[in-house]
């Protein structure tokens, strides 16, 4: 109950995020996805872009929604050398999941959020794998490991983002108070 209250009260004091913050978080996520992961680490790599998109879609759904996720998906397709639309479709589904469930997720504490997030991520990964299976005629079960690691990363990532937004809000408020 305490956790529920804190998340809720946080949401109330948090200032609206700047576009710069959203953009830079997405760029960092693309960068992390682009690191030279190899072998089993590649299979275990969490999809940072999906997580960041999901965070914004659930915490700020009126600004970051399905359209932006689609666009980010197109860029992910270019960096991944996958077919155009493969990531885009997966991220569109992800964003829809986030936007549709954002009210529920904001009410939940992190543990219960994680369960919901796992569902959304499985859907996203399944969409991606399904397209791959349709085009290339085989599925790779190892790929779904990334879905698990992404889910584990949800809690630290949302805590980090919440903290950053909190700090920014505080410093700006202090800045305003200091001015006459």
């Amino acid at each position: 109950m305490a956790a529920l209250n804190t998340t809720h009260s946080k949401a109330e004091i948090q200032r609206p995020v700047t576009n710069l913050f959203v953009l830079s978080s997405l760029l960092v996520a693309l960068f992390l996805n682009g690191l030279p992961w190899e072998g089993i680490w590649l299979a275990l790599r969490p999809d940072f872009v999906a997580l960041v998109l999901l965070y914004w879609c659930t915490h700020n759904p009126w600004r970051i929604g399905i359209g932006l996720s689609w666009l980010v998906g197109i860029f992910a397709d270019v960096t991944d050398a996958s077919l155009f639309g493969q990531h885009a479709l997966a991220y569109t589904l992800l964003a829809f999941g986030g936007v549709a469930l954002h009210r529920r997720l904001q009410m939940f504490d992190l543990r219960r959020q994680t369960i919901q997030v796992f569902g959304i991520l499985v859907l996203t990964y399944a969409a991606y794998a399904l397209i791959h299976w349709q085009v290339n005629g085989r599925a790779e079960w190892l790929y779904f490991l990334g879905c698990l690691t992404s889910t584990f990363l949800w809690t630290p990532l949302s805590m980090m983002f919440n903290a950053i937004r909190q700090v920014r809000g505080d410093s700006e408020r202090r800045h305003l108070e200091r001015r006459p």
Partner: protein
Amino acid sequence: MIDSTQSFRFFNRGPSPVVRLVFFAMLSLLLLFIDARFRYLESTRSALSVLVSPIQQLATLPGILWHQAGDFYITQSAQNKLAKENDAMLKQHQLDAAQLLQMQALQQENQQIRTLADLPQPGGFTTQLAEILYAERNVFQRKVLISKGASADVQIGQVVMDDVGIVGQITRVYPGLSEVTLITEKDYAVPVQVLRNGLRTILFGSGDIGQLSLRYMPASADIHDDDILITSGIDGTYPPGIPVAKILKIERDPAYPFARVTCLPLGGVDKHRHLLILSSLEKLPERPGEAPASTTDKRAKTKRMN
């Protein structure tokens, strides 16, 4: 409180999430269809790749730093080992040089004999060195990106090898980069010959990291463990005589007309950082249109076009 007003704005602003979902999903599927079937979007892709390339380059930095740190450590701690290695390499070089001289003499002789016999001269090939910038981006594909692109006159279809054997083939060219599909990519085909007896066959990638397979190999074929497979040069994509793979295991199941042959690639398909791009070979004369070609040959050709 903020939530309700904000979401009120959201609904006023545009179509509902479901409409957006359907719209963007359809758009993605359309793009997928166009990209998979017609490949019209390559220019768009290379334009967008210019936008994302700063991020990609930044992402390679940790890897480069890691390598440099490793190199630094080696130079600090293992000078003895390096000196020994240097010695060994010098000896190897002398041996190789002697063999190279012999080979040049043989080449000369071969050329003369070919002139006498009125056969076409086998064109030599030149190479350019490129560095692997990015490894494969997802678990499904066996592809790498290398540092030479259209600006260095790299073309689609050129063969990529390392010092030991074939590594892959260029399948996409960007302005400053190109994408190499490794021979271990699923269904990737290379026409090969068994070095020992000249038996011609086709080698397929299996989608696994270190594995290739020979399909359609009759169970009675004269082939043993540890046989070396070299490119046959048939149909002109690969220069002849470059080592490709070594046979690892042969399973002959009497219930099945073909033997299951597993091979290991010889080239460092997932090892080195530097690769050689072979400049394109001379074009062979056009294949006669209605020639009754063997089906495997044809399949290999179409796969490689992809």
